[in-house]
């Protein structure tokens, strides 16, 4: 028995326009999807060329979920996206060259999962204390949902009805571990209820369905009606990281989900519902290609940090507090 609500697909252009997206936005979304996938494909090549130190993770299959959620965020909303959520950075305006530069050796993400979920709740707490109409988004994978941090954070958010939306990127695998060894309920979204808020399961390859649910949840949070947990169901279309060939994932699973490629789904929808033409498509593709080429070039030209900076920034200085956030 599922407890969570299952999200319906979005139908017509009118329906989506009522949610506040016009045709220009839809083309932007397509652009974001292409940039997202493009960054990761290029990153993969850079990795194979030995230019990326450490390891390299991609979110292939998760692009629509990431972009769909990010599109629902307001300009002053904040979030703590994950290693599969490149699309969030793209939508939020992080320039691709910076992302490449990061791959090439600048800074690292928090890796302990899902350590940033309590932090997202804390952002929402600040908004609530100051009575600001802002929302925080906290992401976690279905694997990381097993850790205590998700529980503590969602429970606190539910008790205090904080303006936060939880997103579970359920890509059905945690490294090599399948969902039935990670959790024993039907949907992770079922858990919303036991923290006092709604849970929704959405098809994470259906960008518009994800967007609609995220929009609803964000507005609900903004109105002071508390959190929502949205589970975006996808398949991780590649290995856990570049070194992993995902031998443990049944081939049929990849085949089945390849048919639901989020970029292709969204493209078809545009074709069928929004008069998306060949010319428009090739124009966007051309733009994205150029953007990525320039970005890689700029990143490769960026100098690596100088060893003399090693000790800088372990402790913050009072000046660091002079940012808009902290004041």
């Amino acid at each position: 028995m599922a407890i969570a609500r299952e999200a319906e697909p979005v139908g017509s252009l009118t329906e989506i326009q009522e949610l506040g997206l016009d045709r220009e936005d839809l083309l932007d979304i397509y652009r974001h999807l292409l940039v997202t996938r493009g960054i990761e494909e290029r990153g993969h090549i850079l990795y194979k060329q030995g230019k990326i130190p450490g390891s390299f993770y991609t979110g292939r299959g998760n692009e629509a979920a990431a972009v769909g959620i990010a599109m629902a965020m307001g300009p002053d909303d904040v979030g703590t996206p994950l290693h599969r959520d490149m699309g969030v950075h793209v939508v939020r305006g992080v320039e691709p060259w910076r992302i490449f530069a990061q791959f090439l050796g600048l800074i690292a993400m928090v890796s302990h999962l899902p350590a940033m979920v309590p932090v997202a709740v804390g952002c929402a707490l600040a908004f609530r204390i100051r009575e600001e109409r802002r929302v925080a988004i906290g992401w976690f994978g279905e694997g990381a949902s097993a850790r205590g941090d998700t529980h503590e954070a969602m429970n606190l958010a539910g008790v205090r009805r904080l303006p936060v939306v939880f997103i579970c990127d359920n890509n059905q695998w945690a490294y090599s571990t399948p969902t039935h060894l990670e959790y024993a309920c039907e949907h992770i979204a079922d858990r919303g209820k036991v923290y006092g808020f709604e849970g929704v399961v959405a098809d994470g390859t259906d960008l518009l369905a994800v967007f609609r649910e995220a929009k609803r949840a964000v507005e609900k949070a903004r109105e002071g009606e508390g959190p929502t947990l949205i589970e975006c169901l996808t398949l991780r279309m590649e290995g856990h990281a570049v070194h992993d060939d995902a031998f443990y994932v049944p081939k049929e699973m990849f085949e089945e989900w390849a048919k639901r490629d989020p970029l292709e789904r969204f493209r078809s929808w545009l074709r069928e519902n929004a008069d998306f033409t060949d010319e428009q498509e090739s124009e966007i593709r051309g733009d994205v290609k150029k953007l990525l080429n320039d970005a890689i070039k700029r990143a490769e030209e960026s100098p690596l940090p100088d060893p003399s900076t090693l000790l800088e920034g372990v402790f913050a200085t009072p000046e660091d507090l002079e940012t808009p956030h902290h004041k």
Partner: protein
Amino acid sequence: MPEKTYLQAISDGLRQEMRRDKRVFVIGEDVGVYGGAFKVTQGFQEEFGPWRVIDAPLAETAIVGGCTGAAIMGMRPVAEMQFADFVSCAWDHLVTVAAKQRYRAGTPVPIVVRCPSGGGFSGGPFHSQNPESSFAHIPGLKVVCPATPEDAKGLLVTAIEDPNPVLYFEHKHLYRRIKADVPDERYTTPFGEARIHREGEDVTVVTWGAMVYTAAEAADKVAEEDGVSAEIVDLRTIIPWDKKAVLASVEKTSKVVVLHEDTQTGGFGAEIVATIAEEAFEQLDAPVKRIAAPDTPVPFSPPLEKAFLPQVEDVVAGIRELVSY
């Protein structure tokens, strides 16, 4: 200047900051209606309301992690652990997220985690610990251990102002036992500056927290019985710690006891001894001596707890040993 207990000084300092700066809020278990397990925040919720004095669920990671998020959004959170021991439940958050956030992402995390610490009243292994050494090893965290009411207030204000995560260890055994003058007005006590609790010539005792008083009793005793003049350096803050003051005292006395209530092996005393051994090698007239609790959990049973905690006699013996070296 009014005389206040160590506990009142903390409470007053916190209230003053909350009155002054709307960004400061308190979150913890039972800090609201109940006023905190030790009553540090008594009356706060009446004054500041339930959204600045927040009764949290029993969930230390949510509490401290929530503070980090709120701090990044510009607040100045002060978390209360019901006992310092329970900060172990927020360890991962503190060392993984809060400590590394500035270095990794450039974002300062100005939070204070108040930790009522220390033994001496049969609290047993889970209500008596002094976990400052564990945090002192983690780059990015600051660690504060006031001994006097005046410092308790001034260091708390500095901790709230500091743009970094600060672990503020308030020693429970000092709460109501120690009284002294505390200025009413707002003031800050700098981090990284030791206080000379007592001047002396013959031997230095480097310590902090409740052990300052143990050292002082021992110093009285050796002064009286042996004519030995011991200098007591109260570090006040562990990270950063005042190496200069310690080395200056060593230069004067050439003999050092490092004393702490936490267990010995890998305790912060080792860092101090190692630093002295490295940097004042030629000034020493005797080996540096550590006095600390033995490497066991804190025992619950009174005779065992007494044997566990460093006592005045232990310090006296240590001083005598050095003096006669």
